[in-house]
């Protein structure tokens, strides 16, 4: 049972930190904003990094586009092409963006920005569309159904007492098929290769 440690949180304290939003709408605050309002805010607070059309500036991430590319050699994963739930957009924009000024947006501003992000991703097409707590649940993202549960293990598992292959596990002596693309990564020798592509997630 309880040890008598800590104290009860006040409702005001909980309200200050309880900012998460779930797909069923739990956690959405009262508020509303239109695509047009969102565009204004986006151009002021977001476009410098994410691009006017959410296409990404330099190395900053893109927020729109890429629909239908998930099976390409280089998939483009954005809100419209990949994210399952709109609630995640609200939740994340409010808690983490703009980068460097987190939790500075009001609920109305966040609703407006989310509406604009839907517009950039062609999920809504009307600039006068208004997103609010009341209609939030009616918006479904295109890729919602394409997530599956973890089926692992998905490679070899030995039966009890079995050993992995130890001898002649390959028919032919192995040949080298690829060498390191970026030979010298150590920053100190001055000959680092630049921007070989790829990123860390």
């Amino acid at each position, binding site marked *: 049972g309880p040890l008598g440690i800590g104290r009860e949180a006040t409702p005001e304290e909980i309200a200050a930190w309880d900012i998460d939003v*779930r797909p069923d709408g739990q956690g959405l605050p009262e508020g509303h904003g239109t695509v047009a309002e969102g565009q204004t805010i986006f151009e002021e607070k977001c476009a410098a990094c994410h691009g006017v059309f959410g296409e990404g500036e330099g190395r900053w991430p893109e927020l729109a586009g890429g629909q239908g590319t998930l099976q390409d050699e280089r998939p483009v994963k954005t809100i419209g092409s990949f994210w399952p739930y709109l609630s995640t957009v609200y939740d994340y924009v409010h808690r983490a963006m703009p980068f460097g000024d*987190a939790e500075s947006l009001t609920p109305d501003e966040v609703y407006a920005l989310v509406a604009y992000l839907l517009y950039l991703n062609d999920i809504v097409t009307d600039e006068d569309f208004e997103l609010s707590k009341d209609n939030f649940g009616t918006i479904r993202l295109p890729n919602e159904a394409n997530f599956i549960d*973890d089926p692992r293990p998905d*490679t070899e598992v030995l039966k009890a007492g079995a050993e992995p292959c130890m001898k002649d596990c390959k028919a032919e002596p192995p040949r080298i098929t690829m060498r390191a693309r970026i030979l010298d990564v150590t920053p100190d020798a001055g000959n680092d290769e630049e921007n070989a592509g790829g990123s860390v997630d």
Partner: protein
Amino acid sequence: TLAAGALAARGAAASDTAITELPDWTRYLGEGVATRPYGHPSEFESGVVRRDVPWLTASPESSVSFTPLHDLDGIITPNGLCFERHHAGIAEIDPSKHRLMVNGLVEKPLVFTMDDLKRFPRENRVYFLECAANSGMEWRGAQLNGCQYTHGMVHCVMYTGVPLKHILNEAGLRTNAAWVMPEGADAAAMTRSVPLQKAMDDCLVAFKMNGEALRPEQGYPLRLVVPGWEGNMWVKWLRRIEVGDEPWHTREETSKYTDLLENGKARRFTWVMDAKSVITSPSPQAPLNHRSGATVVSGLAWSGNGRIARVDVSLDGGRNWRPARLDGPVLPRAVSRFYCEFDWDGSDLLLQSRATDETGYVQPSKEELRAVRGVNSIYHNNGIQTWHVRSNGEVENVEVS
């Protein structure tokens, strides 16, 4: 076996002035005690550092720096060398102002100070932490030439913390509680959904690593520990735990940390870090300084599903294997150190290591993994690593047929 040539060459040579001329450190006093109240490594170890690769990310505040695995041994990662993965830089938190809140499906929502948390029963456990994106750059092929970069998003320390179950029981779980959501106090305020069974099993709310307070880069003063599961869930700068009946599908488990397959579907909630190993020496940043004879191959193996059962090493690119020696404590969900000592004939080698854990799971080759996952899943690349060792001792990251 004897390297006959090496022994023959070991006859009398010219005297070494490093011996015959006494060095200054044998003659004269060094610095006294307490000149270094908190010590630091020898200046001769100044190359043993975390490193980043600037072009990998948009900004250093949302980025990674890698553990120098090639320079380390044993199973403990020194605190100052643990890899970093931040999304809004390092929060510098005043512990006297830090609070932990528990709310949601609880009898009583609670707030704790750091002093409060130290009144709960606590535990000490050695656990690895691996980011699911570790080795992510290597999915398509051999990319970065060094195990610090190919495998350096892993570390292993002893955590001291309160089992999360004690804290949840203090608040009292409602009967429909099924998930918990840890949340960070940094400017990324990261959140993840953790199933209640895991939370009540072995999760810790930790405040120490390797005996001292968490480092700021590792979440000072408080972080979540989720043994064996992907590092992203081990929320740093932990400020809140919400209890709920459904997952939250946060950005870090939807946009990120889902594994996109060839067929366009994406796996979600891929929590466990499968068994994995890597040879840390020799490796591209740790070439061999001799040309033949007694040679030590050293590496790490770990599994989120428990203990490592065995590690095998191949010198010929995976065609033939020999068992390596697991050395020191072999602890569940911690790294294990393995060694393979052999008599090198000086010829080219294609070194590989392959871990098997206590469930019987065998570390797959990269080809086996790609066959199942494609090349765009980004995360959970636990494929076998190959190093090409040349006769001159240099080592390169390669792939083999």
